[in-house]
């Protein structure tokens, strides 16, 4: 689901042919599915089972140094589930948008269709909101949208 013209103008992240995606979801089955969907769309995928692990991977966890220390492999996109225990996808989105990685597009997935939730996420800087269960057409649309934004 598109945010309707919500492309961030100053997106400097290159969304090339084989983007590296960080997929965050606490559900094991969903993680496997999103990983396969992204790989089938020529993405390199790293998965994380919760917000904290995602932040650690990105080098943004509280006890870590600046993410720009070069040891974290560059991530072109973060796709996260909304409903997760501990840190929700929305909270993760906020943390990323407040960090040095604020230019990395973040996409929120959810099994609930809630217009309030959708606008809340888009307002906070999410690139797109996607309804689960995810299908191949959703991922294709996502790629098209993100490549359009980065050109």
């Amino acid at each position, binding site marked *: 689901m598109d945010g309707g013209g919500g492309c961030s103008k100053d997106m400097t992240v290159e969304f090339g042919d084989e983007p590296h995606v960080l997929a965050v979801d606490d*559900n094991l*089955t969903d993680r*496997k599915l999103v990983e*396969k969907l992204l790989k089938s769309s020529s993405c390199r995928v790293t998965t994380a089972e919760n917000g904290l692990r995602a932040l650690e991977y990105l080098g943004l966890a509280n006890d870590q140094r600046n993410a720009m220390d070069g040891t974290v492999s560059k991530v072109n996109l973060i796709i996260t589930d909304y409903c997760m225990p501990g840190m929700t996808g929305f909270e993760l989105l906020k943390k990323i948008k407040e960090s040095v990685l604020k230019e990395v597009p973040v996409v929120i997935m959810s*099994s609930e269709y809630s217009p309030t939730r959708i606008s809340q996420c888009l307002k906070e800087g999410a690139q797109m909101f996607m309804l*689960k269960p995810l299908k191949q057409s959703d991922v294709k649309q996502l790629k098209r949208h993100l490549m359009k934004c980065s050109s």
Partner: protein
Amino acid sequence: MDVVQLQRQLVDYRTSLYHEGFLDEQFTQLQELQDENNPHFVVEVVSLFFEDSERHLNELTTALEQQSVDFRRVDAHVHQLKGSSSSIGAQRVQQVCIAFRNYCEEQNVEGCLECLQQVKHEYSLVKTKLESMFQLEQQILTAGGSIPM
């Protein structure tokens, strides 16, 4: 039984699963994702679903046996089960989960217990049917045939 007969049996069986609502088009998505790079994808993701579901069903059983039921805990597990069943296309399981969540919201123990029984039943049905389907697929492959889409 020869390969052609087995293939026909598989197609008929699969069609019946969709027809009876055990599976929906999300399962077709999974099949379409399977390719030479990932020839066992469907079995793998369905196996994860089985593992995941059994864990949640056990947790739900325990949670609903408590003197004072923690509905947030119950809802959290049903939410997970609803999500994963939806992701693989296990429609009937997903549908029971929807009713289950409503009972959680109402803090209705009786309703929850009823749904737990139902979801266990539906889960066991879809598991048996998917396992039968995978067995049939394996028979076809062993006989040198290919799996019809």
